């Protein structure tokens, strides 16, 4: 080993250790920022180490890419609103996938004659997973943004076709490793990745996006891992494995929080449509439509209030209004908490970030298990744009598509105030009998406007 090679290798070892410390820091809010800083230092060391390598003969393209990428990266991170975080994450997975895929193509074109069989397999996997992540993430982005319908798009034999394409690509990668000169096979694999990314995300409904985003996160990591195998670079393998295991872990947690298997999320086309015979009789049931004054009166009489935010809060950007209402309740001496369901919103932790943005102290945010017994002792629950996570059918009705999903016991509290745009069923298309219970008040309309009116109502009333 030359002295330079030793320095480069040591840089990578230090960087890998710093990445692990970075993730360790994320185990608590107090240490998290320091952790991220360690990650930044690690990345800087890794990049400097790479630039020292003698394989690099020219720096013009590198410099151009880094300057352009940094400018875009800074611009995006400075201007993106917190409510758009799921879109941002989906989009960045697309960038990550594209980067690894292009590196794979470049590597194949440049080194095809010098690669071992194992490295060819890794290269094929890298390119396939990279392109799959690229288009899959763009699809997820489109679904979140509303360019593409959030409803599952399905057709006959769809799952068989997708699974067939996946295994076809794997077989092609193995075949390529024996016939390295067949560039058509290589580009066929790349093309399959591009197409499969689109096909695999199309049948997945908008409400399942937390799982999809987590899964794409892990694909991006695995693609980086495959790059590491292809280049024989341990830093890539380690970082890719960290990212991959994080994504897998999150998608498993999300699936568990919906009481559905991984396979069901990916292939189940959940929330396609409600069979007409099943939904219609329930629509005839009556519900209590309440005014802001009614809801305000209930809140005035309450000693304890729990807020349950859902995707609707993100849509109407109501997190600041929620905080303000909570603050005016606290001024009246009311005990206020927030109940956060793992799959509320469109990505893991979505609600936590929004409420943190609105300056809610994080020790008031409670997980499902920590707060579920409190509802029975609570005077009023305010549900802000959440639906499935408060549907009692998940506990009682085995015929419900969401049966078995862990939900909040909101119906046990004295009164339930539901802020909802309209009486339409939520994204999963499942009717929610909570809305028809005698202790439930439905305040229909834009959540933010309703909350602001309620704050006003609380101020007016005095008491």
């Amino acid at each position, binding site marked *: 080993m030359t002295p330079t090679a030793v320095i480069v290798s040591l840089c990578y070892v230090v960087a890998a250790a710093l990445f*692990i410390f970075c*993730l360790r820091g*994320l*185990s608590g*809010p107090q240490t998290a*920022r320091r952790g*991220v*800083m360690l*990650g930044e230092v690690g*990345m800087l060391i890794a990049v400097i180490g790479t630039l020292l*390598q003698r*394989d*690099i*003969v020219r*720096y013009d*393209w590198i410099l*151009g*890419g880094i300057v352009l*990428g*940094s400018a*875009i*990266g*800074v611009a*995006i991170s*400075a201007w993106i609103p*917190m409510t758009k975080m799921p879109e*941002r*994450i989906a989009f960045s997975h697309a*960038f990550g996938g*594209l*980067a*690894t895929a292009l*590196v794979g193509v*470049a590597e194949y*074109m*440049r080194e095809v004659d010098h690669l071992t069989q*194992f*490295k060819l397999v890794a290269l094929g996997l890298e390119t396939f997973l990279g392109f799959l992540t690229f288009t899959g993430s763009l699809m997820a982005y489109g679904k979140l943004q509303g360019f593409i319908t959030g409803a599952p798009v399905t057709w006959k034999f769809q799952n068989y076709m997708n699974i067939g394409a996946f295994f076809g690509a794997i077989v092609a990668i193995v075949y390529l490793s024996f016939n390295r000169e067949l560039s058509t096979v290589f580009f066929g694999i790349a093309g399959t990745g591009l197409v499969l990314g689109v096909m695999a995300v199309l049948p997945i409904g908008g409400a399942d996006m937390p799982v999809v985003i987590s899964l794409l*996160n892990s694909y991006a990591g695995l693609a980086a891992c495959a790059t590491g*195998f292809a*280049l*024989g670079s*341990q830093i890539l*393998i*380690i970082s890719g494995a*960290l*990212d991959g*295991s994080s*994504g897998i*872990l999150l998608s498993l947690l999300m699936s568990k929080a919906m009481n559905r298997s991984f396979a069901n999320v990916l292939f189940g086309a959940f929330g396609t449509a409600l069979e007409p015979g099943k939904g219609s009789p329930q629509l005839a049931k009556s519900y209590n439509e309440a005014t802001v004054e009614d809801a305000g009166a209930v809140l005035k009489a309450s000693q304890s209030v729990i807020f349950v935010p859902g995707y609707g809060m993100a849509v109407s950007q109501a997190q600041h209004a929620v905080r303000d209402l909570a603050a005016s309740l*606290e001024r009246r001496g009311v005990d206020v908490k927030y109940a*956060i369901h793992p799959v509320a919103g469109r990505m893991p*932790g979505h609600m*936590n*970030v929004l409420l*943190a943005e609105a*300056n809610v*102290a*994080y*020790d008031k945010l409670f997980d499902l298990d920590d707060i579920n017994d409190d509802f029975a002792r609570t005077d009023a629950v305010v549900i802000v744009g959440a639906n499935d996570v408060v549907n009692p059918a998940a506990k009682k009705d085995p015929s419900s598509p969401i049966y078995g999903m862990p939900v909040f016991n909101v119906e046990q509290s004295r009164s339930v105030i539901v802020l909802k745009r309209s009486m339409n069923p939520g994204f999963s298309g499942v009717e929610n009998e909570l809305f028809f219970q005698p202790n439930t008040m439905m305040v229909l309309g834009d959540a933010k406007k309703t909350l602001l009116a309620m704050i006003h109502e609380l101020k007016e009333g005095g008491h």
Partner: protein
Amino acid sequence: MTADWVFNLYVFMLATFVGYQVISRVPPLLHTPLMSGTNAISGISLVASLLAAGSNHRLSQILGFVAVTCATINVVGGFLITDRMLRMFRKKPDAAKSPKQAGKS
């Protein structure tokens, strides 16, 4: 001697275990910062992109340039946005919002 690729598989296996252990300790509160943080870390493919862009192969330079740009967006944007999110997580709300304690005492 163990072949290189076997050695690398060991590295992969151990890193996956470490990742799983470390990440299972991240509370749901921080799952979004976790995701954008790991996203920044997976921007390590920047290292591979640099090698492609810095080679003396024409096509590789161009593809590498695009890859460097994409990976840098993720690294820079990912770390900045993670930090921006984490800055918002506070245990105590701002001073403006403490009349509750004032009322209690």
